[in-house]
């Protein structure tokens, strides 16, 4: 992979992470180029969420390194806050702040972290909300929105920090099927804008459509990766084959 991206935007190099005795990421190595969209697939418990949380430094790694633009951000003692400003994250359960309006959810980090003037931050927030068809919800509180709207707001909240990379962790998994589409559209939009993204997903059809590269995790290891056409039609490894067969059997591809 490093042949394709001589200087990767993001590089995980032999990352190890365990919870107690349980090894959750076992020497994971992965390169993500600028403007590339990488989908992580794999059974639940294979380590997708943990990998994204490690990239965002929400979990410390035990060994290995994570490079962002050639800087090792996982070095013990490295200040995580400046890294998190550059890396946006969206969670499966939205995690909007329930005591703040939609607008405040979005402007909180730009005003507190980037010290933008409030008016300017609100202006940007309105523009983003408008682009994603949510401008009439600016004054609403999270519990007044549908799941799909909440997740779109969560994406806007991350985008308002103008991140260089977006990490999306099964952002449609908690949604009613009818609401999945509106969130996927937002992700398509971000791809159109050239956003570098790493996303964990169970939506195989969407992974196939949107990703430049699909990466299959199995028991904490990257077992196989490649362009979506190859991964979905001609996987090389038996584990990938089994996983995809099970997905097809459950009707999700």
């Amino acid at each position, binding site marked *: 992979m490093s042949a394709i991206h001589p200087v990767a935007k993001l590089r995980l190099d032999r990352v190890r992470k365990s919870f107690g005795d349980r090894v959750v990421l076992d020497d994971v190595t992965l390169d993500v180029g600028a403007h590339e969209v990488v989908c992580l697939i794999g059974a639940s418990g294979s380590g997708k969420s943990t990998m994204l*949380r490690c990239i*965002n430094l*929400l979990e410390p790694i035990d060994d290995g390194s994570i490079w962002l633009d050639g800087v090792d951000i996982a070095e013990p003692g490295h200040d*995580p*806050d*400046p890294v*998190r*400003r550059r*890396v*946006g*994250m969206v*969670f499966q*359960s939205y*995690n*909007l*702040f*329930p*005591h703040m309006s939609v607008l405040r959810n979005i402007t*909180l*980090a730009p005003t*507190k*972290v980037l010290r933008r003037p409030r008016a300017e931050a609100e202006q940007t927030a309105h523009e983003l909300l408008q682009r994603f068809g949510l401008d009439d919800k600016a004054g609403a509180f999270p519990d007044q929105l549908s799941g799909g709207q909440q997740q779109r707001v*969560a994406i806007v*909240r*991350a985008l308002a*920090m103008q991140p260089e990379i977006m990490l999306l962790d099964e952002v449609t998994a908690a949604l009613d099927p009818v609401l999945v589409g509106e969130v996927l559209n937002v992700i398509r939009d971000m791809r159109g804008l050239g956003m570098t993204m790493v996303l964990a997903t169970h939506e195989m059809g969407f992974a196939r459509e949107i990703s430049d590269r699909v990466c299959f995790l199995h028991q904490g290891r990257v077992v196989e990766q490649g362009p979506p056409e190859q991964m979905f039609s001609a996987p090389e490894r038996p584990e990938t084959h089994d996983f995809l067969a099970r997905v097809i059997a459950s009707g999700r591809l």
Partner: protein
Amino acid sequence: MTGSTPITSDGADARASAPSRSGLSRRAEYDLRQRRRSTLVASVSTVLVVAAIILFVPMMPGWDRVRASFFDWDTFTDSLPKLWKPFWLNIRIFLICAPCIVVVGMLVAIARGVRSPALFPLRLFATVFTDVVRGVPVILWITLIGFGVPGLFSERAWYTKPVVWGGFALVMCYSAYVAEVFRAGIEGVHESQRAASRSLGLSSSQTMRTVVLPQAVRRVVPPLMNDMVSLQKDVALVSIIGPVEALRRAGILVSQSFNFTPYVAAAVLFLLVSIPLTRLTDHLMARERRRTSGTAVS
């Protein structure tokens, strides 16, 4: 569910769509009936108990003596005005201590929750503080601090007054209780809220201030109010180290008049404050329950 309900002459459809004769929905009619019944039960039982007390207590051999020494109307009207001013001291002690307690309690709760290894001594100190303070009765703390600390000074000034150190002891004790309340509230905010905030680049103290505490405080208002009601009563404990507040003043009146009625008058004053506070607390709790769990289950 409706299968077991016998269909009456109205017919099921008519019942479901048309309002009943009273103009109320079936649900409202049922609620009204239930409410009438429980009001009836409550009033009848109250009347019976009160009647029993009124009838039987005066029949007890010592009643006349007790009535004369506890419920003497003249002594009551005589002592009540004399208690206003000392009671105002109680209120002032309460009004000064309560905000200090909320602030110190919150700081201790935050200190108990710090995770950074560098701040471990702070966490240890906060834990020891709450354990030691809560392990000794409030009245004992007031005695020890109220008599002990002023003895350290040779001069006389505002900071050598027992009332100041009595108040200090109250703040110390109640901060420890209130810290536990806040800690429960802070821990009640889901971890994912912290993760979301940190992932946006907010520091841990910014996360605490803008994301965790506002949500925690909302949850702890009712239990906090409960502690404030207790505080309002426990202010009377500082009387043991000297300040003439309502309880002590009542004691002086009792010894002058050889009659216990001034204590009853003092009790009435405390009730005047604690009952409204308790009602307010219940109201806030009910509101919080409705907000967090939808319809209350009876």
